[in-house]
């Protein structure tokens, strides 16, 4: 790794609001190990204190600084400047799926509204709180989510078809999976997934999984198992009849 550098990078940063905007060009000195968020901060401090960007931890833990860098949806705090060629212009723009507030900041409030509709964790009154690591490994994967909403941003149903009116998006499939697969949860969210979340809209292109900065296997580990449960519940009348006759507790059977 180079110890010092006098290299200058050229950034083209989206400046504007939801009505109009343009890419403004800035020259920023590059230090070793610098990330795109550092470059944005440099611009803010030295050229343009009005430049709007969301950030908090700068360590990929809070999921605030989502953007699209040269078209790639990513966390700006994790995108190293040295991954670009020295002569390469770096285009930085806000995530596309949500309305722009200003510059790199978008209105993600829709996500918070979707979250409210998911039935919260519901343990039995007399639950036994002894449970084992192997019971929770898969739930812990889902709970790594930092709500950067990059998965929502690249989901075709939301990005290209703008079906925010009906589809909850991968983030909330992950959240629902975390609840449904919790060993002590008693609620049933399958009807919700089918009729309100419209899990059927997902055609498993795995774009969400590809951009997840936490490496959550969104499609394979969350969405597909949930889809299977929905199918078992609503499209398998024989299985449903047998379960009914045998009196199998649906919730316990699937855990």
């Amino acid at each position: 790794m180079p110890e010092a550098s006098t290299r200058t990078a050229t950034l083209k940063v989206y400046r504007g609001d939801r009505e109009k905007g343009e890419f403004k060009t800035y020259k920023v000195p590059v230090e070793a190990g610098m990330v795109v968020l550092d470059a944005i901060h440099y611009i803010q401090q030295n050229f343009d204190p009005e430049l709007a960007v969301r950030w908090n931890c700068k360590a990929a833990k809070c999921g605030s600084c989502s953007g699209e860098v040269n078209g790639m949806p990513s966390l700006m705090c994790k995108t190293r400047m040295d991954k670009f060629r020295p002569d390469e212009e770096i285009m930085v723009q806000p995530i596309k799926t949500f309305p722009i507030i200003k510059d790199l900041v978008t209105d993600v409030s829709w996500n918070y509204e979707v979250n409210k509709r998911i039935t919260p964790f519901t343990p039995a009154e007399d639950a036994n709180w002894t449970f084992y690591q192997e019971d929770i490994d898969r739930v812990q994967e889902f709970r790594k989510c930092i709500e950067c909403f990059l998965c929502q941003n690249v989901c075709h149903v939301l990005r290209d078809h703008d079906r925010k009116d009906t589809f909850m998006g991968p983030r909330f499939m992950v959240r629902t999976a975390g609840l449904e697969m919790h060993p002590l949860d008693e609620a049933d969210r399958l009807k919700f997934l089918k009729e309100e979340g419209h899990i059927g809209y997902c055609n498993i292109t795995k774009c969400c999984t590809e951009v997840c900065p936490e490496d959550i296997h969104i499609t394979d580990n969350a969405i597909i198992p949930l889809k299977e449960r929905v199918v078992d519940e609503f499209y398998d009348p024989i299985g449903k009849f047998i379960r009914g006759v045998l009196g199998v507790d649906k919730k316990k059977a699937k855990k």
Partner: protein
Amino acid sequence: MSQYEIKEHDVLVIGAGGAGLRAAIEASSLGVNVGLVCKSLLGKAHTVMAEGGVAAALANVDAQDGWQTHFRDTMNGGKMLNNWRMAQLHAQEAPERVKELERWGAVFDRTKDGKILQRAFGGHTWKRLCHVGDRTGLEMIRTLQDRGVHQGIEVYMECTITKLFKDGDRICGAFGYYREDGRYILFKAKAIVLATGGVGKSFTVTSNSWEYTGDGHALAYDTGADLIDMEFVQFHPTGMVWPPGVRGILVTEGVRGEGGILRNSLGERFMFKYLPEATKNDYAANEEEAIKWTNAAVAGEKTDARRPPELSTRDNVARAIYTEVKEGRGSPHGGVFLDISYQDSERVKKKLPSMYHQFKDLADVDITAGPMEVGPTMHYIMGGVRVEADTCMTRVPGLFAAGECSGGMHGANRLGGNSLSDLIVFGQRAGAGAASYVKNLTGHPEIDKGQIEEAIEEMEAPFKRSEGVNPYDVAKELNKVMSTYVGIFREEGDLKTGVAKLEELKEMAKKAKATGSKSYNPGWHLCRDLHNMMICSEAIARSALSRKESRGAHSRLDYPNTEAEWSTCNTAVERSEGGMKLEHTPLPEMPSELKELFKKKEPSHA
């Protein structure tokens, strides 16, 4: 005159990290109407960055643990300057608060017999930190957030409070702005809970985010509350030092809890040299004993070996690293080496996943293959708003504070893991305190129109300055002053210079200028934040100058010893006509039955 929207709540909670969320949940469950204001989006507050764990004497791993030992560790870690009642409540109630998180859906790592797993941490006698890998804070904030949104709490995201109002002595409301478009908002509230976190943005190298500008400290100070123990600033021993862009980012103490070893450039395991006489017997005497402890911890077995010297308290480890570097035994980029690579690489990735990724992605270092370079980073402030322990009420009726912005709980030095537990214990108490205050309130406090006008004028002023300075330049200068003159090691000359320079900077901050529109304008926001940063920085510098001894995180080169005469007082600052007024007020005296706990000192094994 500018317009503003008006909202009304019984209790307004400012800050939505662990303490604010827990306070809002508690107050709301007691039947009062609650509003929750957060400077960022919900779920992004500083709690999300907490890594190593939450301290609670559940005794799941080390059966000998109990609240008394946790209490004693906390007081010893705080060099006996803690508010004893807060430390007691904290130790007693943390286990219940952690179990409650589990019942609300938090999924902690498990022991082999299916209980919440606990790990070792600096200054804790027993393995006490309940954790989820190294992302415990995320688990906590998400659990509280999901609990809160289903409880009908109204959340105001990306909203910053700039002023609190009183009717006579009593709190009656708050004023602020939305980041999105800069529109103003007036909250009518019968009680307010401050849970705004810390002050790290006053320092150059810090693990803290942009939000940490001491808002709660300053709002309380401006409203007539007093701040105590502000000289006690915690430098976390292990922040990243390389590359420059990541300097200061936290490296969890969990690395040392899992057996991480600190070495200098000579390969020497230097922490053995820096153990204070008073606690030396609690730690391994040599490498052999330390290795035995670590091997047992990794295997989940009991041992009579004592814990490694790297698990000394944070103040001590930070000073040790600073000294090693200063004396020329540092790593290439001005830190020391922290090594966990001698352990099985799959285990390291499982126990410390975000550290693994953080170093791999940001520094090209594989922590399973070689050591990390680490050095001290400003992390936490022990000092804060003085509160009454049981209810968390400040001396201003109706004004409460919890979490990092409150003072007293951690004394002169905080133990790792005691912050997350502080948040939930005193968040709950502040919420209950505020709800109870509201229910017993007679009359209806009203906000004075003139005060609202003043609050608006103050926000408009930066746009009206044709001449003026870039607020980022002022902030940079402030960082330099605090880091240079009020850092880890302090002495009278430096502190006096620091205080003088802060006076100049205060004038400069008044000239900070905003340009452009009010829509999501960080420069404008910083103009206001500087006001808070200045108050906190001045409080830190003046308090540090006044305490003529070394204790915990406060290290004076000119007064290197801990003095008995200083063990009975807190430094307190308050706003007065002539500026910041400082006095030393008596420390509440511990009752004799608690004093007994410090008499019989059995050797600890973990």
